[in-house]
């Protein structure tokens, strides 16, 4: 969104053209493009676990794993956690190598409103893998949209 918004401003369209009051959901293609370019992204291998409801979004636990033998020939290179609603979409990036072990990560995230969280992984064969999860951030529900 930031990119699009800046683009709009650059084009002199500003608010008049963009009725958005708050951060809007970034479409998937636009969200992933900076990382995957024009390469295909497929569902599978990545598993993202996150509760369907979060109270205030300040501290939302999640767990993500990527199925991979993690050998020198076949391993996970990167894992990205992306938000389609946060002011900064990239929440975290993890780099692995053959010396890493099974990709099984838990962390706690900040989610700026109800959104889709993306876990995007690239394997050593260059392919991109994706899992997503919808999260309703309830505290801002009353304030969203208006």
């Amino acid at each position, binding site marked *: 969104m930031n990119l699009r918004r800046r683009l709009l401003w650059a084009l002199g369209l500003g608010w008049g053209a963009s009725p958005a*009051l708050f951060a809007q959901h970034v479409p998937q293609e636009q969200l992933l493009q900076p990382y995957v370019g024009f390469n295909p992204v497929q569902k599978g291998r990545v598993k993202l676990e996150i509760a369907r409801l979060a109270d205030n979004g300040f501290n939302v636990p999640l767990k993500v794993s990527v199925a991979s033998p993690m050998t020198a020939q076949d391993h996970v290179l990167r894992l990205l956690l992306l938000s389609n609603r946060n002011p900064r979409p990239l929440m975290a990036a993890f780099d692995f190598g053959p010396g890493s072990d099974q990709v099984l990560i838990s962390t706690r995230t900040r989610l700026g409103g109800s959104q889709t969280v993306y876990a995007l992984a690239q394997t050593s064969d260059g392919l991109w893998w994706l899992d997503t999860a919808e999260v309703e951030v*309830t505290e801002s529900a009353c304030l969203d949209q208006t």
Partner: protein
Amino acid sequence: MTTTTMKNQNQVALTRRQFVVSSAMASGGLALGFHFPAAAQSNELSTLGGSEINAWVVVRPDDSCVIRIARAEMGQGTHTGLAQLVAEELECDWAKVSLQTFTPGQNLARKRVWRNMSTGGSRGIRESHEYVRQGGAAARIMLLQAAAAEWKVSVGELSVEKGVVTHAASGKTTSYGKLASQASKLPAPDPKSITLKHPRDWQILGKSPRRLDTAPKVNGSLKYGIDTVLPGMQYAAIKACPVFGGKLVSFDASKISSRRGIKAVVRVDDESVAVLADSFWRAKSALEVLPITWDFGANGKESSATIAARLREGLTSTNNVFADIDQGNVTEAIQGAAKKIEAVYGTPFVSHACMEPMNCTARVTADRAEVWVPSQNAEASLAALAAVTGLPLEKCEAYNPPLGGGFGRRGGTQDYVRQAALIAKQFPGTPIKLIWTREEDMTHDFFRPIGQCRLVAGIDAKGEMVGLHLRVSGQSINAYVSPHNIVDGKDRRQLQGYWKDPGESQLGYTVPHLKVEYAMRNTHVPVGPWRGVNTNQNAIYLECFIDEVAKAAGKDPLAFRRNLIKNHPKHLGVLDAVADKGGWDKPLAPGMFRGIAQFMGYGSYTAAIAEVSIKGNDVKVHRLILATNCGHAVNPVQIASQIEGSVAYGMDSLQSESSVKDGRIVEKNFDTYPIARMYQMPKIESVIAPTYDFWGGVGEPTICVVAPAILNAIAAARGGKPVRMLPIKNEGLRLV
């Protein structure tokens, strides 16, 4: 954790039977047409002896229809309106409709088939009308398909009225009750294939059937959250640090532990302490004398005066200010104008003061947590409970009885749920009913934010407004609640009603040179959405100032507005409607004065005329005429209820204030915090003027025009002297 021992003799395991009994009591009984979720261990929603046609509709063999309602009912008639929406498309007999609510756990178990459960932002109906009507229509189609299959005819040959299906050619009839079982086995029709009825063809919508929830409200049988009773339950009274941001240091439980009925004194979190007893009064009385040491921190020095000074600085500062609208050259236009008008308005913090004080009953064990809580968003209560207990959502449940008022206080911020769960966690298995005293409620609210507004206008020789420069300086709700929602540091929410964007809360006036700015100036006082949110303050600032400008231009306030608003026909429509019904052009009795105002919020257009007289310092509001274009009118009499209620709430904007001294709120109860009462109420006329080309809100939009209409009448009565700094007691005035 500081606790005294708590005897657990009351920790009785609740049997299934006890649960049924207590929840039947808690529901007010099935006979009353409401089916509240039984506090069951299962996430499956009962079909109450009928067949579930789809998520929204259950039909029973006796032809009665049960309509599932997702949203919270806090008094606005949302439940009745939503049921009308489904029933209209279902084509059932309204007299045989009853409602069923469910839990957020049940919603989650079905992958949120019922979607959003929250009531707030005047969105209960306008956000869900389409999918709930589709739910009703889909059920109708399936019931007709069942009849067609049985009679081996095509659906097109059938007609339905009040749940009775007729095949005209053969003269056969049957009813929904007989078709339900078969219909429930049919696949759901594609939503895209469904055409919803045109409002012209409405039979149940646009009419005013009685509310479905009135009967238990006139005999005391309706159970609110505060009425929850569970076996072995203990009562908790709580006190948070009176200074926001301050901390609880220590307390001396020994001073009260020998009092009758006291079970425990506990630290709840960093800032609050609770007393548990076998009676709320015992808990509260003990808490009143509990020696507590607080660390007030730096905020202890804040006061209304320090806050006002910060806001004043924001009115003219070049720091941390942004322009949401900056068209033309407002500075030049005003400098070159024939006349310049300037004013500074101010609105204080105000409290929600729901009649039912904040409360929550919680029971937490190692593997299950439940709350019974009046909440505008049961899913938010559930999420808060899960966060506090650390249990997964599947092991938590929130039961949501009807609310004794919400007004935005019981929305996203679930502080009372957190507190109750934090206490209950310390006593596994024992239900804890936490009740806030009114004093706690009024001093630990999420207040309507404080603000000031500087307005400068220029008028030309013909009396036309050529330039308007408006700057709001005040506290941001988003900065407090969800700062990440502020895009590029620009909190547009605070300018609600001044937006150029159409649809939600659009400025109706067209001024050649216009600048609308916001300077964020925050305080340590928690703020949140207060019914109508920023439209309340923003309508006062602009609509009172417009009267000042009209007066300076020597023009009639209505005519002056009509000229400015002509590019926005819907804004003009309600203004004209209220002027017509309010008889703006007709003379008033001697001593009576009129004021007018218009604004837009929550997708709806509103306007008001107030008739006022002043004797000494006593302001009497005699009559208010209020017009709304809410797009579609689902239940006109209930819309009128909301408009009438808006008058009472809007009058708070005139007389109420939560002021700050030594970092804390001064007004603690209704003896010092005035609330509109019967003797102050004017006669109210509602003008409902829907254009049936959009869906707007009803619960909030009309509130914001009440205060400016009255203030403009007050100014007229005082020879044009406006009240700019609210509440009106600042000018020695009071409402009688």
